[in-house]
């Protein structure tokens, strides 16, 4: 796959969340976007991380849950515990953002894109230019394109 074909996957009409957007607003934007995650920009408008489904789950549940090696012994929903976390919806999205800098430039190759998806548990990869987000590539789109290409070749 040439860089040109990767570029074809870039979604450019993606909202970029500001660093001080509340979690509540971020989740609404996420639902409206039909994407599993959105890029977040810092105060200078530069790419700062990703906020998506996984980060929302992290915000909604107590933070110690991530420190538990296993939680299969919690067999009932802990409504009261979740109620206590409602305040998280008013917190800035930056508190929960995945700040691992996973981004690529527009001339990324398919191998580089595959390597990035394989090494990082992200569902989108922002395309950046000089630190600013220009669009995103989703793992689902990449998969669909790869699968379509291979199946076409197989049937041909």
């Amino acid at each position, binding site marked *: 796959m040439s860089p040109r074909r990767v570029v074809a996957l870039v979604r450019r009409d993606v909202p970029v969340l500001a660093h001080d957007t509340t979690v509540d607003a971020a989740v609404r934007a996420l639902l409206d976007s039909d994407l599993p995650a959105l890029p977040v920009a810092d105060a200078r408008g530069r790419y700062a991380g990703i906020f998506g489904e996984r980060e929302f789950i992290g915000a909604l549940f107590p933070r*110690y849950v991530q420190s*538990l*090696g296993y939680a299969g012994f*919690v067999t009932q929903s802990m409504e009261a*515990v979740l109620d206590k976390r409602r305040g998280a919806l008013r917190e800035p999205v930056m508190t929960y953002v995945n700040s691992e800098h996973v981004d690529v430039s527009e001339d990324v190759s398919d191998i580089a894109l595959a390597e990035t998806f394989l090494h990082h548990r992200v569902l989108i990869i922002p395309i950046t230019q000089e630190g600013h987000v220009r669009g995103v590539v989703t793992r689902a789109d990449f998969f669909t394109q790869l699968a379509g290409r291979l199946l076409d070749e197989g049937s041909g």
Partner: protein
Amino acid sequence: MALAIVIFAAALAAIASERVDRTKVAMVGAILVLLTQTIDQEHAIEAIDWATLGLLAGMMIVVRLTEITGVYTYVAIRAGQLARGRPFVLVLLLAGATAVLSAFLDNLTTVLLVVPITFLLADALDIDPIPLVLIEVIASNIGGTATLIGDPPNILIAGATGLSFGAFVVNLAPIVVVTFLVVTGGLYLFFRSRLQIAPDQRDAVQALDARRSIEDAAELKRLGPLLILTILTFFVHRQLHLEPATVALAGATAMILVTRQPLEKALAGIEWPTLFFFIGLFVLVGSLEENGAIEELAQGVASVTGGDRTAELLGIAWVSALGSGIVDNIPFTATMIPVVEELQAGSGDDAYWWALALGACFGGNATLVAAAANVAAAGMAERAGAPIGFLTFLKVGIPATLVSMLLATAYIALRYL
């Protein structure tokens, strides 16, 4: 000698500052004493206590393989459930489980396993988790004092002296039990207003299914007997003419043979930064010894105490507690071991080592930076959104250490003087 002292003092100061990773500091210090030829390579390698490293590595593998079974989580949850919402019983059982696990695993691992469960229990019971976490950390440092493998200072002392597992238990466990009860009781009284559980919350943790915390029952059946056998063998290693490191590595090897976990996963349990920290320290202390600094320090201590055994024993205990609180009990113990060897002068009087163990291990409770378990608990608390500040820890750490050391002093006086 001056250069060896300067490099060592700079390394200690850097470790105490917590601004640079302690392993990096120890490695840089070790390389500096080698590059400046303060110690030659042959003596540097001789200064490394391979028995200590073997014991640490063996136990790291044992703990890594068994923790995946979920058995330690089970212990913590059952401790919480058995309390049935009674705050004092909850504190006693959680602290007791932490202390016992610390004695037979190591206190850092225990804290890493128990603290997240404590947050969960506290959330379910709707109480402040911080008092429980602080009590557990302090209990882990006290509990780890009881055995040869429970706390790094004891592992270092055993490596240097060859004292047996049984000797550690016989000499340290009695005072550890008393100290645990007094300090835990005192901390409960201090925190009791923050540990009140509403009547309608008391059964909240009973809903947890502790049995389901056993993630891999088949693995537990394979490894559980080997874990018990390893611990039991520690008690009789002297009679079997086996060194503790051999026991730990034999246990680890047997577990590697029977486990279904990949070898890489088992060996990933070895905390290389910790081992390199120890290697760096051994070389640094070796350079002090090589250049006569330890001998001079010991002579200085002897001149202050006038060779009086009582003054020396109590001096070692209290100075170790103070030093461990300021620096970190591992480098402090590594430094004190050759000093104590000089003071003891081959008399075979083991009381000196018990005084050092009590001071260094109990001193680990004085400040947030005094023991690795304290730092780990603070890190987890911060990630959980309930940070434990240096002063917050100090408010309970200093009184707990003072009480522990007063009890240790009485014990030393009654038993060894």
